[in-house]
């Protein structure tokens, strides 16, 4: 679906800094009665009502009371500020009290009680998991439309908003149809452009501007939401595809050569040519990618959009199918594989390395349109490139090979086949 933007949803802002209510979650052992007695004795917490009906629980909690969910052995208690330390001590000392944690807000403030209940259900789950040492690291699918009023769902999913890094001082390159150098969000950020297409300079297509925006767009765009991952990176753009969207290996390789000589730490290539199962990768591109790594440049490329899931899957495109080029698959906002996203069907580099947001991705588009929401592994790829720029800032001494390892090692595991998503969902440092 192409469009000029997305309306905000009502779902959680995944990845937003944690916020808390004034209440506490208390995890009790099997003897809940003993635990409640301990809370009463140690912290003066009383009047905890055992409830099984969520509606009744919401009423109690909204009235400032405390409730016990007997089935799961969790109490949600409201205490006065001067009781908090005693409550936390009870969590540490009382044998029947396994854990005490502040209740998190996982949904927007002012939401209805059903939303509120889902929030503390999730909070309870977090307490139980942490208390029992169950840190799965598996991303939970989001079943609601994300709230994109402040930032795109993609930035939320890759946790770019929480990152302490912006890619400052890091040079990042996009090789594509160019960039709209007059775009108000990008004009001040683009350090250098170079065209490898005779007679064409600017982005007369839009694809390149969109990719530049996702990888390196600003922290404060002219119009919200924010859509760029590495907001402080120095942007280099090579035009290797014509305004009609076509290009050949000669221009692409010339672009890679240029980006390396400019000292770019990452090259984002949302381009590719389809392959067949059984095809081998380009020997030339693989040699180039290895030489790029030795010169401290990571190359990231789109896995391709030739699948029609669930009917059929297509193999990773050229040149993403090279072992030393990172192949990026596309996810939707439920963290499911995009129906068009190619799969790792060939050996020797034809695998998917990592996945990133690639469905309904909002980013910059040449003026006067300014912004557009589109889909594709082309949109997933610059999310990864942006994160590489953040990693390069976070680990300035790291080699390109080490950056690759950090990237893949920090990906969030998904409950999906590595044939489709590789190491999982890319995560900002």
């Amino acid at each position, binding site marked *: *679906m*192409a469009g000029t933007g997305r309306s905000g949803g009502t779902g959680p802002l995944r990845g937003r800094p944690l916020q808390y209510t004034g209440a506490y979650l208390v995890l009790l052992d099997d003897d809940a009665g003993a635990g409640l007695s301990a809370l009463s004795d140690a912290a003066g917490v009383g009047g905890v009502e055992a409830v099984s009906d969520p509606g009744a629980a919401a009423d109690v909690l909204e009235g400032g009371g405390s409730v016990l969910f007997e089935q799961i052995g969790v109490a949600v208690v409201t205490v006065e500020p001067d009781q908090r330390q005693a409550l936390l001590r009870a969590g540490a000392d009382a044998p029947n009290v396994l854990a005490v944690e502040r209740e998190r807000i996982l949904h927007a403030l002012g939401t209805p009680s059903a939303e509120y209940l889902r929030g503390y259900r999730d909070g309870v789950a977090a307490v139980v998991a942490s208390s029992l040492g169950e840190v799965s690291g598996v991303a939970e699918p989001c079943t609601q439309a994300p709230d994109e009023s402040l930032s795109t769902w993609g930035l939320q999913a890759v946790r770019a908003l929480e990152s302490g890094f912006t890619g400052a001082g890091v040079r990042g390159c996009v090789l594509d*149809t160019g960039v709209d150098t007059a775009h108000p969000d990008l004009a001040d950020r683009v350090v250098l452009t170079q065209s490898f297409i005779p007679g064409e300079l600017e982005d007369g*297509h*839009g*694809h390149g501007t*969109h990719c530049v925006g996702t990888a390196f767009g600003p922290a404060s765009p002219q119009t919200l939401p924010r859509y760029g991952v590495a907001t402080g990176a120095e942007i280099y753009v090579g035009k290797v*595809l014509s305004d009609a*969207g*076509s*290009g*050949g*290996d*000669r221009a*692409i*390789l*010339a672009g*890679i*050569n240029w980006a*390396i*000589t400019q000292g770019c730490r990452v090259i984002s290539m*949302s*381009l*590719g*040519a389809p392959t067949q199962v059984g095809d081998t990768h*380009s*020997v*030339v591109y693989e*040699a*180039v990618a290895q*030489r*790029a790594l030795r*010169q401290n440049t990571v190359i990231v490329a789109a896995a391709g*959009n030739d699948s029609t899931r669930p009917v059929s899957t297509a193999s990773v495109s*050229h040149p993403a199918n090279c072992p030393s080029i990172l192949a990026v698959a596309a996810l939707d906002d439920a963290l499911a594989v995009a129906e*068009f996203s190619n799969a790792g069907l060939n050996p020797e580099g034809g695998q998917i390395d990592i996945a990133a947001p690639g469905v309904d991705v909002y980013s910059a588009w040449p003026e006067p349109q300014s912004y557009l929401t*589109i*889909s*594709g592994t*082309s*949109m997933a790829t610059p999310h990864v490139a942006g994160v590489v720029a953040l990693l390069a800032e976070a680990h300035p001494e790291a080699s390109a090979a080490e950056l690759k390892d950090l990237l893949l090692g920090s990906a969030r595991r998904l409950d999906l086949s590595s044939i489709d998503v590789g190491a999982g969902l890319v995560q900002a440092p």
Partner: protein
Amino acid sequence: MSPEPGSPGDERVAVVVSVAPEQVDDVLAASSGAGLEDAEPLSAIGVITGRIHPSRMAALHHLAGVQAVEVERRVQLPPPDAPVQ
């Protein structure tokens, strides 16, 4: 004299050639004798690009320092208004 690139009589194909980075200059100097035209060196990545008649590709491949010769691939994006890019 070869026909203009892309003209009806032009049978040459665009190629990308991987060479040992330290031998780019040597291969470049020898490449025209092996039939490579419009040669452009990309020294940082050890590549020479150009055009060549298909019948001479094997000779180019056998030049000292040449690691691989591949016919240029083309990529094509969907039009700007396509929902999937």
